[in-house]
């Protein structure tokens, strides 16, 4: 059983990323359960999706139980740490989206180094992926989520072969598929190099 906790900000394409993981799992002959955030919560707020690969009944991942955190935004990486343990692989985009609470209540957005040190205190490993640049260089600037899905696949933690992810990508992102496959590949390699 592998539990993936996907987090980010409404509008970053997190549901699509979780669907790619879900379809890849089924193509690879595994069971999978995904849970999604819809409705009011999506409007620029913190968004959480879960992907539980294997034979489980409930879609929720309890605190301290995630095998991997896939985060699309740095502050949300920090927020997701309650789900980690020393065995957790944390993969995070370098993207920063400043929440209104920072702009208006003068709260502080921690610098990336502080976030890294907090992650390493509680989690097993930490990989940073410059998803915005990689998606731009693949020619699909809106596909940071595809880059991050590639990064998750690159860690090997899901036990799902790359070819299944690529087929799932074609099912879920049929438009500009060549560019998106390139974006996936850049994410995959970014984590492999670590």
């Amino acid at each position, binding site marked *: 059983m592998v539990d993936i906790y996907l987090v980010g*900000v*409404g*509008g970053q394409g997190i549901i699509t990323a*979780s*669907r790619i993981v*879900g*379809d890849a799992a*089924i193509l690879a002959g595994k*069971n*999978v*359960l*995904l*849970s*999604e*955030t*819809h*409705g*009011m*919560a*999506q*409007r*620029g*707020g*913190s968004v959480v999706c879960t992907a539980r690969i294997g034979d*489980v*009944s*409930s*879609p*929720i991942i*309890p*605190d*301290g139980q995630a095998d991997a955190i896939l985060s699309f935004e740095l*502050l*949300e990486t*920090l*927020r997701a*740490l*309650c789900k*980690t*343990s020393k065995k957790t692989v944390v993969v995070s985009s370098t993207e920063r*989206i*400043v*929440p*209104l*609470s*920072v*702009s*208006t*209540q003068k*709260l*502080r*957005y921690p610098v990336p180094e502080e976030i890294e040190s*907090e992650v390493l*205190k*509680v989690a097993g490993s930490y990989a940073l992926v410059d998803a915005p640049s990689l998606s731009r260089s693949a020619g699909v*600037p809106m596909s940071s989520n595809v880059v991050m899905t590639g990064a998750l696949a690159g860690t090997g933690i899901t036990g799902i072969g790359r070819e299944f992810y690529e087929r799932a990508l074609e099912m879920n992102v049929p438009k500009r598929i060549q560019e998106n496959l390139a974006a996936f590949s850049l994410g995959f390699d970014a984590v492999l190099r670590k």
Partner: protein
Amino acid sequence: MDRILEAAPGSKVLLLGNEAIARAALEAGVAVATTYPGTPASEIGDTLARVAKDAGIYFEYSANEMVATEVAIGAAASGVRALVSMKHVGVNVAADALLTFAYTGTRGGFVLVTADDPSCHSSQNEQDNRYYALLAGIPLLEPSSPQECLEMTRQAFDISEKLELPVLLRTTTRISHVRGPVVVGEVKPGLKKKEFVKDPTRFVTVPAVARSRHLVLLQKLVEAEGLANISPLNKVVKIGIGGKLGIVASSAAFNYSVDAATYLKLDIDILKLGFSHPLPSRLIVEFLKDHDAVAVVEELEPVLETAIRAVAQREGLETRVLGKADGILSRAHELDQAIVSAALVNAFGLRLPELTPAPQIPPVPVRPPVLCAGCPHSATYYAVSKATNKKAVFASDIGCYTLGLGKPYEAADLLVCMGSSVGTAGGLAKVNDQPVIAFIGDSTFFHAGIPGLINAVHNGHKFLLMILDNRTTAMTGHQPHPGSEKGPTCCDITSVSIEEVVTGCGVKWLKVVDPYDVKTTIDSVKEGMAQPGISVIISRRECALIAKRDEKGAILGKRFIDQDACKKCRTCVDRFQCPAISSLDKVQSIDDVLCAGCGVCEQVCPYKAIKEAK
């Protein structure tokens, strides 16, 4: 390829619980499907809207849940199959139709899907709609997974036709919005037309008919309990080797119970109730007799627990029944496997395995949902706060615009339900000396705002009603409403003019403004508030998310902050709210990717430091 319609019988596809319900309706040969969108039910209707034409069914987004239910009743009473779906609070609107339809009963299968929202992820309350099955006296099915959403929806139609009763299919957020593998069946054409056979002593519920039909309903409930007792939807699942401890669970609570019992390494039996009303008493008695102690695990209200305790008392059984009355679980908020594990440990006096404590992390700045970049509501609220200096009482309503409640606008003081802004504004205005402004969205206005407006005109209420017309039902995923130009795939629709409705209700002062024109909007609000009676402003501008989606090329009119001209006055972040504008390390800037090019911030800036990017 649309996986909902094209998936081959027997193939395994990844489906959302809601999509599985839609697919099942097609497999059941549904003829008519209706809805009013609402999270977490929306994707049932959206899926059917998308495939309606190819599937040869009639689908509509109805004006509200009551009308949706009535349209489906008309079809089902004639003899075809009908599905109506809505969020839990929608059933309150539909209840008037549903409760008496239980008396007349149906000819074609009739399934009402209620998607409940424990923990209020996207709702104003977390009412437990299983009570509606008890209140109406109709069968209740509760799926636990996407696969069961498919199977139970199909069976719901069969049960409905067998008993000639409407059937309630109840999901929750963690059922409707869970995606998992589903082995699909075959899409069947089904009967699409049927001439209504007149039978007024059944279908016209004058008092004499209603009295006799109530007796028929009670008899059918006895028959329904017989079906529940032998239904494969109710079954015992063994964890480990089973034993003398038991759990009764339904819906998502069943999933948490399985995971909790597995985690605790218990040998325990779980009676899973999928067909839970009428309560299958015979099964309950057998299960209680076979076990020393039984915990009832359910979300929200103790519906099963109360009924099971009554059965135990009636039968004189000594099995310990444990549940919310014993304080092992709360009546508030959704459960998870950790909560259920703790409840089982508590109920059965077990030892909780050693837990690794959740890691301690420093406080993280909150990120609640906000109005989007370019949102016309944000522009309207800015204008209203300038025009009133916030010295007004704001009656709000259900939609994205409720997000105006926080700083900087604080434009929501009272909100209870769909359409309530118009009604509550009348009451507020009668007893307050402060001016009253009501906000309502276009879709919500059509849903439940119109009777309130007629009432306000007729009874001489004095307030300003602002109809925030973004041309769509935005919050739930941009579904059309009666004012829209484009509807579902199957059918042509006619756009209903909000202006004509408003003037038709008898309103004498009406103005239409573009909220992106800040000055005109401010002046219009001032003018509207000065009117002696009811005044209406339609603040019209398409939802920024649709406008963006329709854009072929780059978004035009993106703005930036000229840092040389910026006086750091913070007006753009403290008085106006836009997620594209942020203030980090005392520097205000506009995110070039997020900016929607509305240009409102340029009008907000007192120093002309915000400029259009060339």
